[in-house]
């Protein structure tokens, strides 16, 4: 047996000085040669740990083996058995905490680059003239309404369409895709990819109804009159603010507003597109997750001179994916750790000019296992800024619970649903994804969608 190859093939990327001036994708993807070399590192384990780490249980050694053989069509087929969005997951899954974390090679060195290989196959497929469309069964006479076209809704739609259900997917915005469309920026997840995935689902016969706000355009009760079942995948789109003085000043944004202007409304192409986005010189982003990294890197690309991530814990506690933190650092985002904004100060015209912050220190670990930040008395200082972006979290939008009597919700406004089946307190209503868990990940939303689709199928057909 050849000696173990313990180093991941690096991902070719745009150079930092180049990419901060454009919105094109940062990571360029493996070439065929790199992909086959990387795939060759996999040990094709009999009891592969990696599969257990993937929330949708992709046959990872199976598709990697196909790559080593050069059978890319076989590889993508293997993935698509359990994952309808490989081009998305290969790019944005937190692989280092999921599949790659459980890879045997991590015991000695670096794991196989599973996400990058998954992306490679999805991109290979997209580059082909024709894609293999799975055969569609005849319609079984049952109809399903899906609320929200994010990863959860898309997964349920695809799974049930392939089982002969008539699917109508309702989306409040004018484009489908959920956070994949309005939140995650172009330079990390090109919108052409999201559109391609949405097109795939439509090719399965799914009827997509845009500009349709369930709870407003029609209530859940009305939907239940014309559909056999409803799946709610409405996401966690309600932005949190910090509840500190000055948050309604001009130049103070929620990450949702900042990113939506840029992504959904194409603000970065203003004035070719009408929605404006301020060009700010000094931008502070509050938070340390993926949303914060995306906002900070967007600000740089919009031409800011200086962009700061203001985070109350330290580098080790950053919840964002390690790869994205590294990208942000390379691009010149500055990190102000152990710093808490306490007050936003504006000029006489109501525009943000300064942020008062306080230093923090880390105490004992809290319930989440992370060390709790404690304020240092008397440590206040000022940061001169003309924009701030609040990226401290989101919770589910109350619109649907407010207009749906009898739908049980939890403390943070999340819809209460059975973890295994997605069934809610209302008959014939299932829910999954961020609307149930609060802001989480693409793949966990898809996993919830998959389980709900199975449960809906069992309930409506009596099948197991």
């Amino acid at each position, binding site marked *: 047996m050849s000696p173990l190859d313990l180093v991941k093939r690096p991902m070719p990327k745009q150079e930092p000085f180049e990419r901060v001036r454009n919105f094109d994708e940062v990571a360029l993807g493996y070439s065929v040669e790199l992909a086959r070399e990387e795939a060759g590192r996999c040990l094709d384990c009999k009891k592969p740990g990696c599969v257990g780490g993937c929330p949708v249980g992709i046959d990872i050694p199976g598709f990697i083996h196909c790559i080593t053989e050069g059978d890319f069509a076989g590889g993508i087929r293997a993935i698509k058995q359990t994952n309808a969005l490989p081009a998305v997951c290969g790019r944005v899954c937190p692989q280092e905490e999921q599949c790659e974390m459980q890879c045997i090679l991590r015991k000695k060195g670096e794991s196989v680059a599973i996400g990058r290989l998954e992306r490679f196959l999805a991109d290979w497929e997209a580059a082909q003239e024709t894609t293999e469309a799975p055969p569609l069964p005849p319609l079984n006479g049952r109809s399903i309404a899906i609320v929200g076209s994010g990863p959860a809704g898309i997964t349920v739609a695809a799974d049930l369409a392939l089982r002969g259900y008539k699917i109508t997917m309702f989306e409040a*915005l*004018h484009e489908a895709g959920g956070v994949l469309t309005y939140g995650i920026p172009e330079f990390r997840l090109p919108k052409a990819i999201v559109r391609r995935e949405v097109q795939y689902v439509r090719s399965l016969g799914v009827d997509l109804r845009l500009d349709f*706000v369930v709870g*407003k355009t029609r209530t859940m009760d009305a939907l239940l009159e014309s559909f056999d079942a409803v799946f709610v995948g409405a996401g966690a789109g309600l932005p949190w603010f910090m509840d500190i003085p000055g948050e309604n000043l001009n130049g103070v944004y929620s990450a949702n507003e900042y990113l939506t202007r840029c992504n959904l*409304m194409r603000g970065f192409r203003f004035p070719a597109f*009408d929605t404006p986005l301020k060009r700010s010189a000094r931008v502070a982003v509050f938070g340390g997750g993926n949303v914060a990294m995306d906002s900070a890197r967007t600000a740089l690309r919009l031409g800011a001179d200086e962009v700061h991530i203001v985070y109350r814990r330290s580098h080790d506690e950053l919840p964002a994916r390690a790869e994205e933190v590294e990208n942000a650092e390379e691009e010149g985002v500055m990190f102000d750790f152990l710093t808490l904004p306490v007050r936003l100060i504006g000029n006489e015209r109501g525009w943000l000019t300064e942020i008062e912050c306080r230093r923090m220190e880390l105490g004992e670990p809290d319930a989440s296992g992370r060390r709790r930040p404690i304020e240092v008395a008397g440590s206040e200082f000022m940061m001169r800024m003309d924009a701030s972006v609040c990226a401290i979290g989101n919770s589910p*939008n109350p619109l649907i619970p407010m207009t749906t009597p009898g739908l049980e919700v939890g403390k943070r406004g999340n819809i209460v649903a059975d973890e295994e089946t997605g069934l809610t307190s209302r008959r014939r209503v299932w829910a999954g994804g961020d609307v149930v868990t609060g802001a989480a990940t693409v793949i966990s939303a898809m996993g919830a969608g998959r389980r709900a689709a199975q449960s809906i199928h069992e309930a409506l057909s009596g099948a197991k």
Partner: protein
Amino acid sequence: MFKVVERSMIVPNVHLLTIEASEVAQAARPGNFIILRPDEQGERIPLTIADWDVSAGTVTSLFVQVGASTAKLARLKAGDTIPTFAGPLGNETEIAKFGTVVLVGGCYGIGAIYPIARALKAAGNRVFALIEARSSFALYWEDRLKTVCERVLVISRDGSRGYKGHVTRLAEILATEKIKPDRLIAYGCTYQMMEVSRQTKPLGIKTIVSMNPIMIDGTGMCGVCRLTVAGETKFACVDGPEFDGHEVDWEEFLARRESYNAEEVEPLHRSGSCSHF
């Protein structure tokens, strides 16, 4: 795609827009608004629903041409299509038997108060309308309002119709006409609603205003429409758009409304329109 049934300028700079959107028509209630995009490059902008026809499946709004998006709307013809028309959004106007209700409308608000007047009358109220315009030629829908109001009072800036001047005369007009409102509802430009609230506060008249901040999604997702009401942050699109005018932080609201002024000049020039009042 949503079909334009009618787009016409009914008085200088105020346009009527009727769109085929049967689902919105079926669910529309007084005080609701819609969000539309004039074309694929367009912004999402909110307009109040001024009327609807369930059987024809149409929804009507009135808009004032102020910037790039409304200039694009002003070029639409019957038979054209627009890519986005979502609604009805926002909470409906509270309709109950209050007694005497005065509806104040200016610019697009003259149309926007019509369905509210209709519903309030049906609920057994005495309904008065007080509409305001630059001059007699800028008034519209007076006849329509008369069908659902006990009286329609007019203020024109140049005095060519009704009272001369501005809504700053509200308290005086109510006294002269011997109208004692149990509730007042105002729709129109921000300054007008602010002024109305300022006038009614000392009189102790409950005053509802329909706030018109910048919006994007209109579903509570982006937070750009936030304002402070009674010391608390609210999202106009889902918590409103109607609020108690005596509780709104007007100064902050006006500042937030201006936040994109510099940028909006640019598409304005491209659109070849500068017909501000």
